[in-house]
C-alpha cells in the first residue's frame, strides 16, 4: 500500500497542496493504524494527516475518488466492496483551457485528470496482501504518471509552480504586481503577501509587548518599598511607554486599470487588521462606498469581486478623484481624528475632471497622516491625465507600488506611522 499512498501524495502536491515529508510519514503511520479495508475510513485518515485546510478538502476528495477507485471487474474478483462505485469521471476537475481558467479564484485546475486516470487504474491489485507485486506496479504507474504529467505540462504550456520566477527572496521582491498573474502564481503571491504581513505583524506585536512590559524601574521600586515601611520592595515598578493602536481608513481605487494591485493591497491590509484599533475600508471609482463590514469578514480570494460590485459603486464609470475626495471629506469628516491614518491607493488619472485637491488638504488637516500608493512606476506619474502632483502637497508620503518590494515598503511605512 505504501507506494500507492506515496504516489497519491505526489499527485496532491501537484495539485498545489503543501504536504511535507513529515506529514507523509504521519499519513503512512496513520494508515497502518486503521488498515485499508474501509475505503471511507482510509479517505478520512489520509485527509486528517495530509490536508490542513478545509478549503482543500474538495480537491483532496475529488482526487481520492479518482485515485482509489477499483475498476469494477477487479472488485468482483477480490470480493471487496468499496463504499461507492466509480464516480470519478463526473467529479473530474474541468480541463484547463489555454492556461487561464474562468475565474482566478479556483485552485489551479492543472489536474492531468484525463491522463492520470488510465495508468492508475491499470495496476490490477488493491489488496495489501500482494505488496511486492503491487510495489512494482505502483512504481511503474508512477513513472507513467510522471510522463503523462510532463506531456500535459508541455501541452498546456503552463509553467509549474515550483518553476515560477518568484522562488527566491530577491526575485520575489522584483516581481511586478500590476500585471495579471496566471492563477497558480496568483495564489502563490497571495500566500507571499500573507507571509509578509505576518512577519510585520509579529514585529509590531513584539514592539507593543516590550513597551507594555516596560523597563524595570529601580528608583520607584525602592521608593515603594520604603513607603510601605518594610524597606522590602515587594512590588516592582516598571517604566512603561504607552503605545496605542492607530485607526486606519483605506481608500482603494477599484477601477479596472489598478484592480490587480488593489487586490494585493487589500490582502495586505486585511492581514494587518490586528495591528490597528479599527480599519474602515472604502472603495471608489467616481464615488466612495464603504465596505468595512464585508471587508472584515471576507474570504480571500473568493469575495474579492463582491467588493467592487456594490450597487452604489459605478464600476464602469470614469475615475474621478476630485469628486471622491470631496465626498469623502464631507461624509467622513467625523471619522477623522489625530490617530487616524488615511491610506489611498490610486493612479490619480482623473480623466481631466477637477482635481479638488483642497478637499484632500482638508482631510489632511484633520488626520494624522495621509499615505498615497501609486500603482504606476514613477516615470509615468504626471503624464497624460495623471495629476498626482496636485495631490502630493496634501500627502505625507507618496510611494510607488507596482512591485512586491513596494508592497513590503508600504506595509512598513504604515506600521511605523
Amino acid at each position, binding site marked *: 500500500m505504501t507506494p500507492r499512498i506515496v504516489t497519491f501524495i505526489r499527485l496532491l502536491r501537484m495539485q498545489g497542496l*503543501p504536504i511535507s515529508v513529515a506529514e507523509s510519514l*504521519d499519513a503512512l503511520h*496513520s494508515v497502518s*493504524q486503521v488498515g485499508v479495508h474501509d475505503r471511507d475510513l482510509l479517505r478520512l485518515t489520509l485527509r486528517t494527516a495530509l490536508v490542513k485546510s*478545509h478549503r482543500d478538502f474538495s480537491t483532496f476528495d475529488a482526487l481520492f475518488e479518482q485515485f482509489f477507485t477499483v475498476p469494477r471487474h477487479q472488485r468482483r474478483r477480490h470480493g471487496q466492496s468499496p463504499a461507492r462505485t466509480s464516480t470519478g469521471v463526473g467529479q473530474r476537475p474541468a480541463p484547463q483551457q489555454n492556461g487561464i481558467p474562468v475565474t482566478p479564484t479556483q485552485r489551479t485546475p492543472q489536474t492531468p485528470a484525463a491522463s492520470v486516470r488510465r495508468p492508475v487504474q491499470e495496476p490490477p491489485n488493491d489488496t495489501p496482501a500482494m505488496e511486492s507485486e503491487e510495489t512494482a506496479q505502483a512504481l511503474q504507474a508512477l513513472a507513467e504518471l510522471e510522463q503523462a504529467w510532463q506531456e500535459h505540462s508541455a501541452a498546456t504550456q503552463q509553467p509549474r509552480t515550483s518553476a515560477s520566477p518568484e522562488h527566491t527572496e530577491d526575485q520575489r521582491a522584483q516581481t511586478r504586481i500590476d500585471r495579471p498573474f496566471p492563477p497558480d502564481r496568483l495564489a502563490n503571491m497571495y500566500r507571499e503577501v500573507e507571509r509578509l504581513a505576518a512577519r510585520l505583524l509579529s514585529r509590531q506585536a513584539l514592539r507593543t509587548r516590550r513597551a*507594555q512590559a516596560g523597563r524595570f524601574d529601580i528608583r520607584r521600586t525602592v521608593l515603594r518599598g520604603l513607603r510601605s515601611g*518594610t524597606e*522590602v520592595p515587594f512590588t516592582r515598578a516598571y517604566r512603561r511607554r504607552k503605545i496605542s493602536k492607530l485607526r486606519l481608513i483605506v481608500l482603494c481605487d477599484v477601477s479596472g486599470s489598478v484592480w490587480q494591485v488593489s487586490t494585493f493591497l487589500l490582502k495586505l491590509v486585511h*492581514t494587518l487588521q490586528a495591528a490597528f484599533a479599527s480599519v474602515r475600508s472604502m472603495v471608489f471609482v467616481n464615488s466612495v462606498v464603504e465596505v468595512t463590514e464585508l471587508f472584515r469578514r471576507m474570504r480571500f480570494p473568493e469575495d474579492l469581486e463582491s467588493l467592487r460590485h456594490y450597487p452604489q459603486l459605478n464600476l464602469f464609470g470614469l475615475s474621478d478623484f476630485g469628486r471622491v475626495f470631496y465626498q469623502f471629506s464631507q461624509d467622513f469628516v467625523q471619522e477623522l481624528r489625530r490617530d487616524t491614518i488615511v491610506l489611498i491607493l490610486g493612479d490619480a488619472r482623473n480623466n481631466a475632471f477637477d482635481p479638488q485637491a483642497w478637499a484632500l488638504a482638508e482631510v489632511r488637516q484633520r488626520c494624522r497622516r495621509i499615505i498615497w500608493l501609486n500603482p504606476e512606476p514613477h516615470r509615468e506619474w504626471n503624464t497624460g491625465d495623471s495629476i498626482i502632483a496636485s495631490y502630493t502637497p496634501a500627502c505625507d508620503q507618496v510611494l510607488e507600488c507596482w512591485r512586491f518590494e513596494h508592497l513590503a515598503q508600504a506595509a512598513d511605512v504604515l506600521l511605523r506611522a
Partner: protein
Amino acid sequence: MTHNPSLSPSPAARRLAAVADVSEQFTAADYVCSKETATAVFLMVQLQRPLLVEGPPGVGKTELAKVLAQTTEAQLIRLQCYEGLDEAKALYEWEYSKQLLYVQMLKEQLGTLLATTTSLNDAVALLQRQESAFFSRHFLLPRPLLQAIVASQPTVLLIDEIDRADQEFEAFLLEILSDFQVSVPELGTLRATQRPLVVLTSNATRSLSEALKRRCFYLYIDHPTLATELQIVQRKVPGIDSRLATHIVQFVQRVRQLSLRKPPSISETLDWALALVVLGASVLSRDLIVETLNILLKDKDDIARALREAGR
C-alpha cells in the same frame, strides 16, 4: 519524529483502540460525533499527535477536548489564548513576592548562618550555596503549559482559540509541542513523563502558520447535518417531544442556509430547544418563533431575515 507508535500504547490509546470505540464512548458521554471526528481523535490518540480543530464558533470544538478528557479519564488543562498572551502567562512565572516573603521570614536564620563568616566574600559564597533554595519548584508558579508537562497523571491539554494569540506565540508553542520539555534556566530542563494529548482549536479568524499545521492532525467541524443535529438535540434536551425536536432542527438548518451575519450554532439550537421545552411548546408555531427567536439569533438583521424565511 520523536514518537514511535509501535512502542507501549498509552492508557488512552488502549481505551480508544479503534475508530468505533471513539464513536461509542463519545456517544456515551453525550457527544455525538461524525466519522471524521472519530477518525481524527482515534489517530491523535494512537500516534500522540496534537489535533488542530477548526470550524465556525459553537460547533463543539472545545467540547470535544472536554469529552476526550472525560473518556480517557484524563485531567483537562485549558489554555485560553488571547491577543498579547506571552510565555509568563502560558508557561511559568517566579513567585517574586513569595520569595521575598520567605527571605523576610528567614532573616534571623540567615543571620545565624552568616554569623560564622568573617569576610563579605565568604558570606556571598555561603549564600550562593543556598541559592537553590530560593529558585526551587516551590517558588515556581506553573501556568497551563508547564502544568501539562509536569503532570503525573494523564492529561488533555486544550489550547483554545489559538488564532487569537500572536504569531510569535505560535512559534513558541511549536517548540513545546515538538518535544514536550521546557528549560527553566534556574532549574534545568523539565521533561514530560507522559505526553499530554493536545487539542488546539481555532475559529480561523486568521490562518495559522504552516509549521504549526504541519505538526498537527487536522479536523474541520462544520455545522452538523440534520440527522446529527437531531440526535444531539434529543440527547442534550431530555424529554423533548420528538416532533418538536424535528421541527426545531429543520428550522435551524433552513436558517443556516440563509447568508446570515452569524449562523446559529449547536449550542444556540440547544438553548432554543430548552427554552421551548420550558415554555411547554409541543409544536413550532409562527408566533412561538417570533417570540423566542432572539435565543437562536443575536443580530437584529439576522432575526428579521429568519422571520421572513419562517413566513414561508
